[in-house]
């Protein structure tokens, strides 16, 4: 049963990661693949706070999210101030550099990883309760991102992607929108990191590297960018698929690369054969129906 729980937890976590990554790369059009490093920051901050200073786990997870949110500004502010294209290289440097750095700090476990992270809920209410928690938060994340992208902020991100210059000429500040969305996406990933740490109770720097980046990217590209359900479907499909391979009882030295091959191969396949993903996004942005009593506009929208 534990095996099934683990898979469900992973699905929940990757729904959170893929959806928040879609917010950054899809909705906001920011090129960065360093999403897993914010997942890592959340995991490490939360684990250390609860382990060292005995902070209650829910609070430490929240702090992990805030930590990831703030850390994202370290990358995005200097990079985006110059040009959007910098973000990509700056964030890869940040991701790999921080992983390298973590390996050298014995206080946080070094390359061997951080063990004995306090658990949460499991002792009192069983593993099921944690599964429910993670899946519920995954649902909340998906709904939140849908709410955000279908509101005025989503309209702004769409326009910014279309034509940044014209967008600025309307008095909108593109840089801060990008910094803010990058921060929100990273903060959500940080919370997912905390959830991971307190269930599996072990984290190591190498698990947040480029393999993880391509996994999350695959979920978004395969599922369909800029759709609510695309990343969800992507996360579920790509979590279940590697499980199928594990049935073949391959040695770990083959299994790891094979998973990587599968992820990257799928992205390549989709990029050339079906670039829009399983669920294609609509060409036209349509927001929520306006609530402020503007009666007739809703009907016009349907015509």
């Amino acid at each position, binding site marked *: 049963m534990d095996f099934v729980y683990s898979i469900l937890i992973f699905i929940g976590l990757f729904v959170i990661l893929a959806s928040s990554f879609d917010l950054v790369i899809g909705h906001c059009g920011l090129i960065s693949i360093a999403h897993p490093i914010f997942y890592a920051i959340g995991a490490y901050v939360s684990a250390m706070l609860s382990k060292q200073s005995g902070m209650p786990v829910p609070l430490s997870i929240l702090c992990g999210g805030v930590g990831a949110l703030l850390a994202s500004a370290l990358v995005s502010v200097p990079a985006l101030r110059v040009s959007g294209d910098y973000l990509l290289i700056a964030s890869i440097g940040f991701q790999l550099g921080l992983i390298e750095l973590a390996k050298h700090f014995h206080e946080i476990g070094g390359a061997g990883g951080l063990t004995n992270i306090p658990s949460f809920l499991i002792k009192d209410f069983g593993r099921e309760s944690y599964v429910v928690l993670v899946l519920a938060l995954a649902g909340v994340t998906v709904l939140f991102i849908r709410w955000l992208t279908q509101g005025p902020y989503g309209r702004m991100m769409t326009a910014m992607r279309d034509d940044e210059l014209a967008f600025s000429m309307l008095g909108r500040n593109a840089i801060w929108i990008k910094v803010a969305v990058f921060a929100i996406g990273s903060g959500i990933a940080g919370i997912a990191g905390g959830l991971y740490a307190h269930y599996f109770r072990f984290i190591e720097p190498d698990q947040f590297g480029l393999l993880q980046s391509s996994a999350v990217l695959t979920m978004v590209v395969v599922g369909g960018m800029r759709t609510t359900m695309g990343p969800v479907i992507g996360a579920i499909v790509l979590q279940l698929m590697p499980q199928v391979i594990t049935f073949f009882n391959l040695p770990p030295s083959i299994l790891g690369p094979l998973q*990587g091959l599968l992820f990257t191969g799928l992205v390549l396949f989709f*990029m050339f054969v079906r670039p829009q993903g399983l669920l294609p996004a609509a060409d036209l942005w349509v927001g929520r129906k306006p609530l402020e009593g503007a009666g007739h506009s809703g009907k016009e929208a349907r015509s």
Partner: protein
Amino acid sequence: MFDLAVVSQILWTSFATSSYFVLFAVAFALVLKVNKVFNFAQAGVMTCGFYAAYVGVRILNLPGYAGFMLGIAGGVAMSFVLEYFGFAVLRQRKASAMFVFIFTLIVSQFIAYAVMMIFGTWPTTIFASMFWPVTLVGGIAVSAWDVPAIAATVLVLTGLWAFLKYSRNGQFMLAVADNADLAELYGIQKDRILMLSMVMAGVIVSVGMFLYGSRAQVQAAAATELMLFAVAATILGGIGNIWGAAIAAVVLGVVQNSSILFIPSAWQGFLLFAFLFFAIVLFPRGFRLPERRNTLKRMAVAPQALSDGKGN
């Protein structure tokens, strides 16, 4: 604490080892300049070049020069595949810069995993021994690797310089780099030139990987870090400036290798990322994903047109 002999020894060795950094950086800068692509798939080309040479020398027991040729063939083949089945298709489809970039990144990862499947994750070298005989020159130990490596690098750079300056195709390449659409208008086959620059980059990195792999251990993921080094050098050297990237690569290579004098060796790997970050934060001038210019600036008529009462 450091006597002159030690310092000059380290400087010499770092200078010699920066030879392959220069090649990687020049190839990256060339593709960025001509093809307008941040080609992270270069890591994949490098991996192919290395393992082709490795198969030749270690598995087929061919002599070194044959392994060298095989390495170049491997890199060129990968470059060809990338351009023909990848970039050309994406260009035709007018894929966004982000899309193309993700493609390069994923391809390099794909190749790394494929190589891991085939050759395992253990580090290997092209020749069975990494030991090179050493001669003392004025108190400095010069290994038998150093001189040929520097010579090969200088040869490649001179060849590239001469090619760009004197050959017709080289001039076409610069024309495409300057304005691909205009170049096409003048009858230059853009696709052929873009292919040529990819293939040349393939040759250059394969030479670099042969040098690297005959001196240090390589595993499937090693090329990514080597390439990030090239990215840092390209940014520091100024985007679009191939020779600037080469000089930056020498400087970075010497700094990284001689850092052993100042910081614990465990931290040397971290320096690369510090370079990358500083390159972006402190020296970002001119660095952006190049957009293709669609319009031509018209030369304005000089103001004295007024005085003689004529425009033209």
